[in-house]
């Protein structure tokens, strides 16, 4: 790339199981690093302000807003994007029509993946407080409220997550 700022940092990220070396200005967000420098455009930019959740990825299994994160902060950490998601959630989203335009979908699926792990680990929520029990719909909705869907596919998203969480997915 010509004209790149001289003020760059070299660091290594692990993305979807592969090590990649990046040389970037330190102010580049993890989101921009993924989209602009690694060609992983499945992670979306809806607001670049941490308000919509479209940029959600997993860092060592925990969901984060990649737009609010500098790439260099995650040197050495394991990042999972939609391109690296395995399991039944994507297919369940299709079966339950948990999207329309598809732009928030990567973030919804990554967020749901992280959310299920949080719930399994007993992390509290506003719905069930310190002792989350079974993953009821109100709990899913509460825990997924950081991911906006303007097409309004919320019902289908909850259906898809419930099906995968309960292990009834075909």
């Amino acid at each position, binding site marked *: 790339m010509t004209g790149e700022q001289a003020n760059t940092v070299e660091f290594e990220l692990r993305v979807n199981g592969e090590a990649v070396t990046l040389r970037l200005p330190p102010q580049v967000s993890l989101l921009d690093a993924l989209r602009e420098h690694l060609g992983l455009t499945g992670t979306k930019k809806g607001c670049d302000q941490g308000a919509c959740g479209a940029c959600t990825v997993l860092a060592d299994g925990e969901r984060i807003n990649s737009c609010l994160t500098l790439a260099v902060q995650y040197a050495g950490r394991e990042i999972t994007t939609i391109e690296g998601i395995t399991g039944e959630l994507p297919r369940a989203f*299709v079966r339950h029509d948990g999207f329309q335009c598809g732009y928030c979908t990567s973030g919804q699926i990554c967020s749901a993946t992280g959310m299920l792990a949080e719930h399994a680990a007993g992390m509290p929520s506003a719905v069930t407080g310190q002792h989350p029990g079974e993953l009821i719909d109100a709990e899913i909705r509460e825990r997924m409220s950081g991911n906006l869907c303007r097409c309004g596919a919320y019902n289908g998203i909850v259906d898809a997550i419930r099906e995968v969480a309960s292990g009834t997915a075909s």
Partner: protein
Amino acid sequence: MTQISTHTVIPPRSTTSERSVGRPVDRVDGTAKTTGEARFSAEYPYPDLAHAALVHATVARGRITAIDTAAASAVEGVLTVLTHENAPVLKPPPSPNPLNLSSMVSGTSVSYLNTDEVHWNGQPVAVVVAETPQAARRAALLVRVTYDSLPATLDFAAEEENARPLKGDLLSQAAAKKGDPEAALAAAPVSVDLRYTTPPYHHNAIEPHATTAAWDGDRLTVHDTTQSIDWVRRHLALRFGVPVAGVRVIAPYVGGGFGGKGLLWPGTILAVMAARATGRPVRLALTREGVYHTVGGRTPSAQRVALGAGPDGRMTALIHTSVSRVARVGGRPEPVTAVSGHLYDAANIRLQQNIVELDLLSNTFMRAPGEAIGTFALESAVDELACELGIDPIELRMRNEPARNPIDGKRFARRLLREAYALGAERFGWSERTPQPGSMRDGRWLVGMGVASAYHPPLQLDAHLTLRLSVDGTVVVRCGFQEMGMGGATATAQIAADALGVPLSSVRVEYGDSALPVAPMAGGATQTASVAAALLTAAEKLKKSLLALAGRSGESPLRGQRLDRLEARDGGLYRADRQGETYTGILSRAGRPSVEVAVGSDSGLGAAAGQVRFMARFLRDRRRWVKAALGAHFCEVRVDRDTGEVRVSRWVGAFDVGTVINPKTAGSQLRGGIVMGIGMALSEQTLVDPRTGRIMNPSLSEYHLPVHADIPPIDVCYLNEPDPTMPLGLMGLGEVGITGAAAALANAVHHATGKRVRDLPITLDKLL
């Protein structure tokens, strides 16, 4: 055709013994959208791609007296800073002409960067082009602009008294009158006369507008977040003075539109201009704030609804007037009062739209323009009248259900509103509602139930396409329609499969590219019906060609047969006695790799004829009958008696939308409309500073969209009876869901609390 616009349909395998239409099949683009494969407009890589960022005006009206770009230009990686002093000069936007719909695509009349005039607070006044998005954005902050401010008219509320009656045009009427409604209102034993207001709203598609533009000599390729690829192509060719044939607009995936990507806004023009000026491919991805400042939203409104009735509830007077705004630089008024000409059998009716012109960015259409906000006022007022009369709100509606269109006595093409209410009431359990406001409680929660009618007229435009059947049995539909999540590709594949009698899995649909035959824009809930009509015509032509091919052979059981006596099934044509032939068999014998037919012509006389056909059909239809997608919303809310917090706890929507092609995607469309209606009622509003014209909450943190926790399960059901006047009996359903939704919610809040909120959104402070 490159891979860019090709979308392979891979639905589950099926046999044609089960028809595709009417089945809840998965979306054909589902895998692409759930794996991150789907590429949106800001995601096309180009070698040597440069990035652009906008500088927005900070005054509402004035002239630029100086613009200092030195500091911005000095930022490392900046290629150029375009301003009105150095930008390439374009041809001005054309004057809007209803006979040439593409002339209406420009969001404003401003020649961006070709003028020193500022017409709204937020207008782009400079574009920085740089090697990286970070450099472009940083440099944009360093551009210093000095203005001579001019007086500006900005305050909608203050200007309301200066509103002038709107003149109608070919496409919409602005006023209508029957009888003497004011006298009837004065004489009515029971009446209400009420004022409702709605704030400005923004579409807030989660994908911000973005354009990637690449020139090759006078040829231009644009990846644009647009609902109107053909109009964008024509507009760009005109503005940049290049042949239309050399401009290609590609948009296979659009990350939500809702009307906000229907017109062409500054970002598209400026990205193309920046690419022209720098000789590099350029991407301009708007910031969220940039979307608010350069893409219009929904007008605010102030509405009067006055209803007069006898003690039996029969309406004698219905008056609905509105004030909405347009900008001095553009915008079309929403038909706010139109719905009130169709819903109630009142003897005397008056409808009147009024407008004010402000120095703001043009308003634009947003999901169900007119009906979305008009039904809030009308359907709230009907609920208030029901309370005055002591009649159940559904019963009041049934007593005023018209046999003919109330405003002009025209026939209805169909009208199943009674049936929709009956179906919805049963599923919702309306009979458990006690009429007295505040009478239903659950602990600290006040429970309320409300209803309202949904209404949206369908429109059918002219679509062109080609349909090809190959010797291997695969079918390709090529049509330049657009997919923003409505499920158009899936519905089109289903319709093609049934029309030809082939499995869904053998149909591929190509769309979202101006290199394909022209289809109408994705808007007004028109697309599926428009494409379906063309597709059915094409399928008939194709089967005729195949029958003719078969008939050339003495061996074919189809020789001498008439098409209308044959059935298309199991991948071929069959007689009633089950003798017949597969398409593959016909083509193999004829030694043909494929047969292709075309419907419509994209250029010259053919294109002009298409416009004329549309207008003729529109006017003929309007003379003959009145048709609409209809529905009944049932909403239950729970309101915290101490804090006034409103939670929507249940929702049933019963719809009459004609034939449902795909219940899965149709349900999502209708639910999506209801979700947007919930946001409209409870949390959404764009705050415009009346002193400066600046939008004060241009972000998703401060403009509150409904989130997961706000949305209960929404039960959507259909009457599923075909509309006799529409292709396949289908009607678009992208818009009807939002209509009436806000009123149903406001009516439920009144039932819960006894408080009537006539000013949206229904925030806590209005309930305390």
